[in-house]
């Protein structure tokens, strides 16, 4: 079902209790939120948890959205912060086993496993990056967001995110080169 209206209007409707509006917001952003969380956390189950936590926060804070950024940018910022919180709680590096828990009764699970496993060396190299670099590379190069968008989501100046992306790529090349040498 499609719910008409721009995204800011949808959030206003969420505040007034419109369930369809919230479902529409979720449908618009759940894939990218999950993707960002998976790249940052490196673990499918944790990414699903983080995706759920992200939308819980979106629901509860919908009334605080002030329209200073795109709704998507606001939501991805919540997603990144949620992932930061998870990483802080875990206090350990993310696992590299992506699709272990996928439900075997899910007909699309096999495809998801194959998709996630296409470039395991890149996933592993990403996991080796310092979190700040990894997040910048994920948002910019994997999710295709502009540098200003990535900067807003990460809460840092554009120059900082630019530098992190560039250095992150350099480190990725180094890690990937090391993997190939082994």
């Amino acid at each position: 079902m499609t719910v008409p209206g721009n995204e800011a209007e949808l959030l206003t409707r969420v505040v007034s209790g419109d369930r369809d509006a919230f479902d529409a917001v979720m449908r618009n952003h759940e894939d990218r939120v999950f993707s960002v969380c998976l790249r940052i956390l490196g673990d499918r189950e944790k990414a699903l948890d983080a995706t759920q936590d992200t939308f819980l926060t979106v629901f509860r804070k919908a009334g605080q959205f002030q329209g200073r950024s795109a709704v998507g940018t606001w939501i991805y910022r919540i997603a990144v912060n949620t992932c930061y919180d998870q990483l802080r709680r875990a206090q350990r590096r993310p696992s590299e086993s992506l699709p272990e828990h996928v439900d075997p009764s899910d007909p699309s699970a096999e495809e998801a496993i194959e998709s996630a496993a296409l470039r395991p060396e890149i996933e592993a190299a990403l996991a080796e990056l310092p979190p700040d670099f990894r997040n910048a590379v994920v948002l910019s190069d994997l999710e295709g967001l502009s540098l200003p968008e990535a900067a807003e989501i990460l809460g840092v100046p554009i120059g900082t995110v630019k530098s992190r992306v560039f250095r992150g790529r350099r480190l990725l090349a180094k890690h990937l080169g090391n993997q190939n040498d082994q």
Partner: protein
Amino acid sequence: MHDHPLDLIAALADGSLSDEGEARALVESCPECREEYRTQIEVIGWLAATPAAEMTDLEKAALHRDLWTELRNQPGKSPATPWWQRLVYVAAGLFVTVGLVSVLNNGALNGGADSGAATTAAGALDAPTEGDPFVAQGSDDGESAPEFTTETTAAATETTAAASGGEESLAIPFAELAEEARSNQADRSATQGTDRDVAACLARVALDEHVVVDEIDLDQIYLLVMPEDPEAEPIVTFVVLPRCEIVYVG
């Protein structure tokens, strides 16, 4: 290599430079810069070839199901209501309270007046944040103030009814409420309670050209009915549901 050339070369690699002249000259003249450029291009290519991470259909379904379960289990954590909307709720609550106190002060009701008003004010302020996040926040069209009006009117009257001894001694101030409906120029263009087969009931008691302008929910539903034609004499009729009987005309 210094930081500045790295940023410049990397920006050349991802195509974000508006003027590539300086960066291209650098890459051509400096072997180290050329190597850096190749590295950046290579990594961008790897990342671009990485497929998007997607949830399976079952994972999406589980996400939605778990999310709604979580929201229902934590009813107190509904969306933070903006300050202006809270102000509207408070204003609506005060408006209803003042209206009720005005009616009660006219002497139609006995001793429960003050407690009724207090109940009304508390109910009006509490209503938006309690219960299921998608049930207690008002109607889907966002017009929550009318709901508060109906609920709080009923709450106040109910309090009064309880104080005066229950159903046998209900002292519903029909005349006062009818007069208030007339003086407030109740909106006759909007009917209420159509889910209770109101139209059929009104037709049965020969009020088919009338509309419901308000209702009071006690042990039974009391409808305040007025002629649909605004030019007609503003006679207020009270019809009680589900019996569908006229209990007052004035």
